[in-house]
């Protein structure tokens, strides 16, 4: 048996390298690494405001990350989180004026469901293209990201533009479909509950349903499907629907909880980070919220570095990249140590 001490040593080594590599760049920028890490960790984890912002960013990251995890479990690489988030948000904003007249929790619920449906429709389209024509979902989702971005640019200057027709943004959604603030004096909204519920639902789906089982079978070995009589095409479409739907839900949550209207840069580029979130969680839904918090630290920490330590914020992307690499290295080393015969 490999010693636990060896594993521990390896863990410490990796943590040290995570700290050391970005330190070189911080030194090169003429700043003190200690001050930088102090600012980064001090603000994000030790202040109320900082941590609240981390949670705010972790909400969409969790939802999209769960979507990525669903797809990856089935061996489908959904890189389209950003596009699905945008389309989900557009769909729910488009119907928001009608939902506003509904009783309070019902309108909000419908708002979220429409967001899920919007992202899900875009995802299902990708799944169908793949199942029907064998289209590569990576390429299709990346391309659709640009289509969705252009769609957003158009709708906020066209059909969904605010009534004054001055600013490139949509009308504000009715207050009745907004997600209420959950923690006073912060932006933490009830989307947190949505993210937690989605996490639990997905855990149950993976563990206890026939659909979750089929998904893991085709993810493990696609060629088994015809032998076992599993309809892998249908499973692919279903999976992309759920995966895109979760990203779309994230879009609706961002609108209902934070922005209350569509604007050019509301999407925040969470899609790519969500892939790292899902992979670092090893596609385990219960771990996704925690890795999402980690990436929330990077998002919020970037601002803190610039503000408090006067360090150019791209340093935080170097830290983020180092963490991902270190995780991969750790994973590879652990895998090698326990490689099957």
């Amino acid at each position, binding site marked *: 048996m490999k010693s636990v001490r060896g594993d521990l040593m390896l863990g410490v080594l990796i943590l040290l390298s995570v700290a050391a590599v970005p330190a070189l760049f911080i030194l090169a920028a003429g700043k003190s690494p200690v001050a930088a890490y102090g600012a980064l960790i001090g603000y994000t984890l030790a202040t109320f405001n900082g941590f609240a912002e981390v949670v705010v960013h972790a909400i969409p990251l969790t939802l999209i990350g769960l979507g990525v995890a669903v797809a990856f479990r089935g061996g489908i690489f959904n890189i389209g989180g950003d596009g699905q988030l945008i389309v989900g948000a557009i769909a729910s904003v488009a119907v928001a004026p009608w939902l506003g007249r509904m009783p309070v929790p019902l309108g909000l619920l419908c708002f979220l469901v429409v967001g899920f449906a919007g992202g899900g429709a875009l995802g299902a389209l990708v799944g169908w293209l793949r199942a029907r024509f064998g289209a590569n979902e990576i390429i299709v989702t990346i391309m659709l990201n640009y289509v969705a971005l252009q769609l957003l640019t158009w709708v906020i200057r066209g059909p969904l533009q605010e009534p004054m027709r001055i600013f490139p943004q949509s009308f504000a959604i009715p207050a009745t479909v907004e997600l209420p603030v959950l923690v006073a004096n912060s932006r933490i909204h009830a989307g947190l509950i949505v993210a937690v519920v989605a996490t639990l639902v997905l855990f149950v789906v993976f563990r206890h349903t*026939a659909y979750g089982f089929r998904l893991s079978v085709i993810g*493990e070995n696609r060629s*088994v499907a*015809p032998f076992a*009589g*599993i309809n892998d095409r249908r499973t692919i479409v279903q999976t992309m629907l759920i995966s895109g739907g979760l990203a779309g839900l994230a879009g609706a949550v961002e609108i209902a909880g934070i922005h209350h209207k569509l604007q050019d840069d509301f999407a925040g580029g969470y899609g790519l980070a969500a892939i790292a979130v899902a992979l670092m969680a090893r596609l385990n839904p219960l771990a996704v919220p925690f890795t999402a918090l980690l990436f929330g630290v990077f998002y919020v920490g970037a601002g803190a570095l610039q503000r408090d330590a006067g360090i150019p914020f791209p340093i935080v992307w170097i830290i983020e990249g180092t963490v991902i690499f270190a995780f991969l290295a750790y994973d590879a080393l652990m895998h090698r140590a326990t490689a099957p*015969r």
Partner: protein
Amino acid sequence: MVEGRPVPSYAGRPLLELVGIGKSFGRTAANRDVHLDVWPGEILGILGENGAGKSTLMNIIAGLLSPDVGKILLNGETVRFSSPRDAAAAGIGMVHQHFKLIGSLTVAENIALGDARWGRGMLRLTSLRKEVGALAATLGVAVDFDRRVDDLTVGEQQRVEILRALSRRPRLLILDEPTAVLTQDERLGLFRLIADLAERRMAVIIISHKLEDILENCRRVVVMRQGSVVDRAHLAGRNRADLVRMVVGEDLPAVVGSPERAVAAAPLITVENLTVRRANGTLAVDGASFALLSNEVLGVCGVDGNGQSELIQALTGMVQPASGRVHYHLQGVRDGWQDAAMLRRLGLCHIPEDRHRHAILADLPLTANYLMTHLGRREFNWRGWLRRRAVHDRVAAAISAFEVRAPGPHARMAELSGGNQQKFVLAREFACAPRIIVAAHPTRGLDVRTIAFVRRQLMRMRAEGAGILLLSADLQEIWEMADRVAVMAAGRIRGPVAVSETTLQDVGHWMTAR
């Protein structure tokens, strides 16, 4: 005994010597205190049941695994391999049971792969062609460097593997189950090649379950059981029964014969004018018509690639036929094509020829592997909700009923040896009380004891009234088990005829007819 068997010189020192090799995976000892010597020009046979530790030992020699204890001496000097590349550099080549070729690449590209001589950045395929082509010519092996490996038959793929190993000029060549997938002709060709290599002073180690492979071609045999060498012997004057006793440690129960049918046979599948196309559009099955009856074993034989695989995939609901009709005489059957899940529910089970590709999920536990083909059963799947407890109990029962050697229902499939994986597949497929069993090469690559077990199980199902379609490359097996036999050649089916009314020669002739 066999003439022309090369005589190695046992003078001087052995080419390779293993001293006290031990290797454990977790708590299981795969190898225990193994001593072994191989001499230049020798063909050494290694026998043992599935899971006896043969493959582990060979992987240690070939540098894929490093031993926990013990040492490896090459020409009397201790060596330590940290990768297959080291072993290859030291002159050890290995051809694995499951080929390590890349299907989408050409033969030349596969041979060049991982071999620095043919260039690190740019490949020097022209000089590869010249040198390896010359090597192939001296050995009398035909090779087309430009064909994609996917397009080759299994036998041809194996020749590419061997050629790749030989292109690195090894002094020792290890062949793991080289004949498992070969036809009789290909098998004879392989052993001619091996004898030729041995004459050129190369040492060859052959692992095989087929006792004939060892008896006819090796001078010495080493027998392994549960990780240890239990016997080693010169083969002169030994017969098949001696070898069986050495491997199993006892005499095997006789294989069940084919008693006369007690019940009147009724058709279970009627196939009319069935045509199946491959994914690339070529005709695989060309207008097949026949019936499978109850209480019978219908043997189907043919040289690989003549449409048998596609016939079976069409009958078991894995692919849709291009035209023709398949009617299943099962209760509740509907018209039209049905997928494998539907057919299983009706009582048709399938033991596929490529276990790793179709029948198992290596990295998932046995419970998942079991549930995979029983997902439609209310017992395990209640309106979309899994009942894991019920699956677990069923798997535990299946493991003990079929004597599958496994740590438990939660063990990963990859932890089981090949023979135990096959037993598990059998247990799983028989669990739905099938009326029709389609079994493709069900004993391929298994040891003698497991082969006897699998055959007994099939014959038991036959006695209970099931109809069994047995696809086998082993004519001996067809003759021992089948009531009727059909032959496939170039997509057309010949027969079926009663085995008692035909001869091996006839069938062999039909197999090669165009």
